[in-house]
């Protein structure tokens, strides 16, 4: 338990250090507006990252989230434009459509036994195409339309400067953390990821768990889509392109291991904020785009390496401790024999 707290402390510390570096070397980083807009930027990534954390903790991966957001957003925009459905219904449809995306991913993974990476890579193609199926066309030509429904646009808004997406993200993160740590499902997610075979042996339906995490991810993609169209005030065909990689980067920087069984939503939240801070801070320097890219890459590489070195160090310590105890055990065993 203490180790877990130590790890959290370190990840928060690295976030703070990064923020301090930006704060002292650039202008206008530590202003209320900027910090609020950083929290806004990480909102959509963060909401999806909660679901993807679940997936990665079960040792899976989801590459289709960006495309799913694109598809759901376009579907909503289409329905708003063509049928002028009420905002509440649109939100429901959005969440439902996202969930369906998740159901499909889960179906391909568990029922068709296609590995997660391949399954979600191909549904990424599928969802991208679905965007065009629902794209609004005029005389056969795609014409993206502005959304005028205030109920949707308000979702991109803020209360006293705090964006709704930020609030939702944080609320969902807390719920996610509770699911992971306090519920049966959470325990099963860890068990499935750390050792699927023995989770199966313990009577856990791991296929069901894996399916569930995909459904949760889809559900969250649906929620994220509402904020996406609320913010942009439209849905465009390229929406969400590359989002899946940002999400995965946030999740992994937040401490979830690809090998499964490790990480939590606290870490993911820090990871999502870290990525947003990095993106925001780099833009502050007015550097050429090349330098921005290079700095971003270098910082992430350093973070990953640091994380790995730290983990190895902790593993070694655990190992040493176990060794010592084993030797003590032998001692007592021998003494009494």
């Amino acid at each position, binding site marked *: 338990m203490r180790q877990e707290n130590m790890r959290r402390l370190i990840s928060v510390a690295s976030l703070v250090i990064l923020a301090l570096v930006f704060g002292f070397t650039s202008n206008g980083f530590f202003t209320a507006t900027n910090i609020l807009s950083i929290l806004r930027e990480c909102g959509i990534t963060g909401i999806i990252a909660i679901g993807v954390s679940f997936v990665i903790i079960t040792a899976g991966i989801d590459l289709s989230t960006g495309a799913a957001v694109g598809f759901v957003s376009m579907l909503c925009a289409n329905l708003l434009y063509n049928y002028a459905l009420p905002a509440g219904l649109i939100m429901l449809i959005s969440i439902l459509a996202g969930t369906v995306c998740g159901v499909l991913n889960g179906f*391909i993974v568990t*029922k*068709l*036994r*296609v*590995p997660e*990476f*391949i*399954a979600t*890579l*191909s*549904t990424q*193609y*599928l*969802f*991208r*195409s*679905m965007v*065009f*199926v629902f*794209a609004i066309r005029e005389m056969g030509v795609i014409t993206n339309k502005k959304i005028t429904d205030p109920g949707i646009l308000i979702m991109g808004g803020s209360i006293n400067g705090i964006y709704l997406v930020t609030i939702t993200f944080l609320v969902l993160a807390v719920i996610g953390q509770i699911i992971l740590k306090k519920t049966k499902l959470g325990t099963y997610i860890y068990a499935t990821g750390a050792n699927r075979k023995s989770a199966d042996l313990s009577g856990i339906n791991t296929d069901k768990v894996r399916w569930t995490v995909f459904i949760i991810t889809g559900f969250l993609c649906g929620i994220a889509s509402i904020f996406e169209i609320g913010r942009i005030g439209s849905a465009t065909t390229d929406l969400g392109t590359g989002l899946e*990689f940002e999400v*995965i*980067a946030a999740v*992994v*920087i937040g401490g979830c*291991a*690809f090998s499964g069984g490790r990480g939590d939503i606290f870490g993911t939240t820090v990871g999502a904020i870290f990525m947003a801070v990095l993106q925001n801070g780099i833009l502050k320097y007015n550097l*050429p*785009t*090349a*330098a*921005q*890219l*290079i700095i*971003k*890459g*270098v910082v*992430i*590489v350093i973070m*990953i*390496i640091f*994380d*790995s*070195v730290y983990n*190895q160090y902790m593993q070694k310590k655990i190992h040493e401790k176990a060794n010592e105890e084993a030797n003590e055990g032998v001692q007592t065993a021998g003494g009494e024999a």
Partner: protein
Amino acid sequence: MNKKMDIKAILGKSQRLWILVAVMLVLTVLQPGVFLTAANMKSILLSISVYGIMVCGTIFPILLGGIDLSVGAVAAAAGAFAVTWIVDHDFTNGAVIVGVLGGLLLGAVVGLIHGIIVTRFAVPPFLITLATQNIVYGVAQLLTENNVIACMKPESFAFLGGGRLIGIPFSIWIMLFMAIISYIILGRTVFGRNVYAVGGNAEACRLSGVRSRMVIITSYVASGLTAALSGIVLASMNRQAIAKAAQGYDNYVLTALVVGGASLMGGEGSIQGAVWGAFLVGVISNGLRLVGVASDYHGIVKCIVIVAAVALDAHVRFKKSGLQKSSSLFKKKAKA
């Protein structure tokens, strides 16, 4: 019977590649006299040649259970280096040689860095190569100064991507040549044997005296090299260097590899499978265009074919092994 076994062996023992045969059959019927012609096959091969070259090197990290997502960026940077060097040195043949070698070296260096980071720090290659992708694209931007650098001469450079040998585009020859080299390395050399072995169990290999680290580093270098080569071919084909060249090619490469039977867990896959995989993706895109399906909807068909191919393969394997209960879905079908 015997012949059938041979075809199976060539296809890399993977059922999923039979999908290719089925797809080609359907297209031949749909587009008689158009699809199954030498000219069309040539244009399919040409369309996959650039990432086909990448596949020949990227398969190495994949076989090790790793991944290289930076191939697109490396291609852009290498192409940018070659072209800018040639442009800056008066388009001489000498400049072409230096430019191409320099580009390849750049790719190799990126691969080397990946290899060293992956072996030294035991970090997930997925994330590392995703991050270096930014850095390398940054380098490409530096080289091109965010502009299009046209390079219409000399002939020797244009030949790499645009020339023809016995009526077949030279980039196809390069792809085939690289595929054969990969095939020989994987199938006939100690290094190739070691790649499969390390991908299956790195620790066992270390204890058997295999220099696992060297194998891993060399594999990433190979991936960087072929990515650079394909970038140079692409630059030559387009007669220009741009910083955003080859974006998304990592996706094409992965698709080709997984459709071709490679397991992302490592230890499984073959170069012939990967080339067949790339070819299948090329055939689908070509076929959809010939049939006249708008490019908007290609993704739907691609998704179905990939899932069908991989699911069929998985199903056959599970059925054969008898170790796991077959998916309930197939069970129901069997009963019905």
